[in-house]
């Protein structure tokens, strides 16, 4: 017998859950997201548990291992409530102090607080950090607050209220209208209006009298992107609730969450959440006693990037090889097993419950004319604060990279930002004031994509960046269609030649021609956008290509075959550090006298430059 038999039972349960969580309750939120795990948060958990128990605080303090808080750069993160002290880079040996000082005595542990790198100012709470106080969180509303493995946490925060509202006071048509009015567009990259997609799927299903499926695309695979991972790990119930509302609107009774298998934590959290939702009567037959039935199966991807493409994903779900097919007949008409199928991305689904709960007008009041709401970006690369950032659409690149993420690491100069993953484009400094939304990014030759942002500094070679992304895409091309399989391979080999100093006149023109062929003639989204890294770097950094091809020079000082290292005798004090570090004994010189590099022996690995503390090693 399911636990919550009707909406009243849900509300009663919510009231109880809230009563157990008063505002002045003592809570420790340890970030258990993959970023913080990588910096050791998993080892903190037993230490906290032991320490709390030793101090007789079992049951007194609510210890939560939460999903990603966002500021991965400073992980592992710990927040102590009710004071909301924000601790960063916490190590196991810091735990007793946190428990004694903050949990028991209510005082902050000064040395673990965040210090603004620019001003040196110490910040006590999360919301005092520029990284957080400029964000607006809708999709990531509960990240860092709830324990994703405890459904009570989600319900206490208002979870499943939107589902209850939709099922009891709205018709499917009204739900679709609400989502249409909200202006919500697909967060996976396409930016297609979500409500319109739902409507098409519902109509196709009704016309053909067929069953319909809903799918959540959790096959996030862009290098450096982890927005969906953050949501799947940190708030799985938001996705389940969103999908259930969507299924109700569309008239579907079966859904799938397709998660990439490289996200084991996401798979685990989603699986637990689905189990819990079933137990509570929020999934399965007769949800909340309303007569509506819907269930979700979780499918793991096999590691192919292309399976993030909707038709390839559906082929993979059917047990076939993950290859895209022509989409001239849309998947909302003929998708999974040739039935009408509605596929949305993780973030899109997670945005649905707040829209239903707070209304379309509220959501539409955020963002720009054409792009409503917020968007999560994973900002990585050469920035001070890497992590997950959720901001209203229309915020400029400059605000995200400099104001929120603290600018470029090590005081270097900004050069470009790659948005939209491997199929996106690289935007230069002149584009920093571009409002980030679907239209503006596309006009600038890049795209929103799923929200990856890779920031590059002055030492990044743009030709090499294009080469890197093409290498990724060449490996990830399924190989079905000629332009993608063969075209990318030849583009990669041309770019590789250019970075090796073997570029020839005509190469740039051939790249253009291949890029146009891919854009027009490739079969799926991967292929048609695959040339974007090349096209956008050609558009904004053509001089760098010219320097490589015609002058055999890499202006960024990166491409090994095109650079030389030398030691500035003025700056070198003969400390001998580079001499010891050089793997090929190319450096000669007596102690305390300027050293020299033998170019014949130098393999241009750059170790001397990294080793030198006086900036005496120059690259040209």
């Amino acid at each position, binding site marked *: 017998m399911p636990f919550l038999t009707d909406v009243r039972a849900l509300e009663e349960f919510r009231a109880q859950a809230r009563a157990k969580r008063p505002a002045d309750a003592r809570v420790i939120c340890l970030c258990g997201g993959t970023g913080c795990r990588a910096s050791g948060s998993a080892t903190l958990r037993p230490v906290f548990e032991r320490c709390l128990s030793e101090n007789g605080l079992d049951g007194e303090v609510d210890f939560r291992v939460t999903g990603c808080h966002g500021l991965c750069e400073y992980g592992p993160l710990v927040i102590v409530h009710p004071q909301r002290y924000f601790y960063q880079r916490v190590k196991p040996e810091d735990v007793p102090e946190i428990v004694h000082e903050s949990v028991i005595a209510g005082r902050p542990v000064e040395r673990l607080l965040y210090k603004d790198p620019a001003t040196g100012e110490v910040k006590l709470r999360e919301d005092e950090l520029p990284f957080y106080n400029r964000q607006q969180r809708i999709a990531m509303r509960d990240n860092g607050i709830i324990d994703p493995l405890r459904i009570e946490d989600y319900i206490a925060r208002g979870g499943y209220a939107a589902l209850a509202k939709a099922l009891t006071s709205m018709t499917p048509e009204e739900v679709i209208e609400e989502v249409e009015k909200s202006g919500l567009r697909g967060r996976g990259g396409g930016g297609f209006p979500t409500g319109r997609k739902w409507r098409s799927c519902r109509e196709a299903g009704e016309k053909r009298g067929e069953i319909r499926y809903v799918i959540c695309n959790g096959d996030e695979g862009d290098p450096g992107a982890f927005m969906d991972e953050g949501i799947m790990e940190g708030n799985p119930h938001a996705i389940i609730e969103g999908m259930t509302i969507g299924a109700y609107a569309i008239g579907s009774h079966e859904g799938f969450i397709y998660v990439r298998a490289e996200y084991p934590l996401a798979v685990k959290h989603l699986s637990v959440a689905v189990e819990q939702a079933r137990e509570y009567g929020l999934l399965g037959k007769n949800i909340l006693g309303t007569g509506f039935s819907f269930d979700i199966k979780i499918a793991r991807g096999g590691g*192919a990037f292309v399976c993030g493409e909707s038709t390839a994903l559906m082929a993979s779900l059917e047990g076939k*090889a993950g290859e895209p*097919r*022509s989409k*001239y*007949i849309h998947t909302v008409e003929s998708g999974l097993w040739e039935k009408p199928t509605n596929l949305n991305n993780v973030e899109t689904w997670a945005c649905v419950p707040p829209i239903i709960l707070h209304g379309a007008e509220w959501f539409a009041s955020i963002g720009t004319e054409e792009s409503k709401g917020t968007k999560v970006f994973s900002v990585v690369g050469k920035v001070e604060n890497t992590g997950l950032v959720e901001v209203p659409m229309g915020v400029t690149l400059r605000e995200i990279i400099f104001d929120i993420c603290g600018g470029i690491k090590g005081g270097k100069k900004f050069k470009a930002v790659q948005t939209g993953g491997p199929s996106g484009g690289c935007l230069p400094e002149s584009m920093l004031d571009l409002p980030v939304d679907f239209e503006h990014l596309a006009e600038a030759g890049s795209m929103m994509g799923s929200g990856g942002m890779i920031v590059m500094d002055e030492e990044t070679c743009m030709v090499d960046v294009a080469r890197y992304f093409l290498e990724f895409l*060449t*490996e*990830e*091309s*399924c*190989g*079905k*269609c*000629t*332009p993608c*399989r*063969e*075209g990318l*391979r*030849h583009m990669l*080999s041309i770019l590789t030649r250019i970075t090796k100093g073997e570029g020839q006149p005509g190469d740039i023109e*051939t790249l253009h*021609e*291949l890029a*146009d*062929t891919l854009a*027009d*003639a*490739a*079969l799926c989204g991967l292929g048609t956008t695959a040339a974007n890294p090349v096209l956008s770097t050609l558009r904004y950094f053509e001089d760098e290509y010219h320097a490589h091809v015609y002058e055999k020079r890499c202006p960024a000082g990166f491409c090994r075959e095109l650079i030389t290292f030398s030691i500035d005798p003025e700056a070198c004090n003969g400390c001998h550090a580079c001499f010891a570090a050089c793997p090929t004994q190319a450096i000669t010189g007596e102690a305390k006298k300027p050293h020299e590099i033998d170019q014949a022996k130098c393999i241009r690995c750059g170790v001397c430059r990294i080793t030198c503390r006086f900036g005496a090693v120059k690259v040209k």
Partner: protein
Amino acid sequence: MVHFTINGVEVEASREENVLQVARRYGIYIPALCYHEAVTPYASCRLCIVEAKQGGRTRVVTACTYPARDGLEVQTDTERIKARRRVVMELLLAQAPASEKLWEFAATLGVTSTRFPSEDPDNKCILCGLCERVCREQAGVASISFAYRGRHRKLTTPFEEPPDFCKGCTACAYVCPTGAVEVRLARNLLELQPWKAKVEMAVCTECGTPYAPTAELKEVTEKVKLELPALNLCPACRRKIHAKTVVMGKS
């Protein structure tokens, strides 16, 4: 029925047809290598691209998978299409430079050279997958399949071993547009390359000529549920004996 235009010519078609089928029915040529009317369109070679205008929006689409729809305006040979086709053709030539048939086909499109280097000068296969589809959909055997991904993709047999279920129907060789499948008769064994398939041939009881794969004969026999003595003869002997029966009235 739907009505639309191809290169300005008004055409009529059923909703189940694709643009390539309709064009061919009307005698309008659109080049294609991975298309064959006997199997499901696959849209992999991308030579059949055309410009399709619908609802005010012009897109480059593959004719072999684009459904016939009312009001569609198709252009098969615009400058844009010709330029893209040319590059696709060059890419295919670089991929399978050993295929004479491919060079001949390319010449009909006015492409006689490729600027792209070849990785395998002996290759004839362009991975159009017709062999795979005909084996699965028509022969009902699925002895051939795609394996690996991207640049490593190839057409091969299960576990890359001689296929257990190949009947020797040679449909794969028949549909292959580039001559990449080779069929050779060595005494009474039919060899299909590159599948490493060796299929036993039945020998004519009259003249001793190998004339049909044993497995195929067996299948036919089982299907018609009759033991036909004529099936033990090669077509020539069958004709001869039949003629004798008719003319001389003896069996």
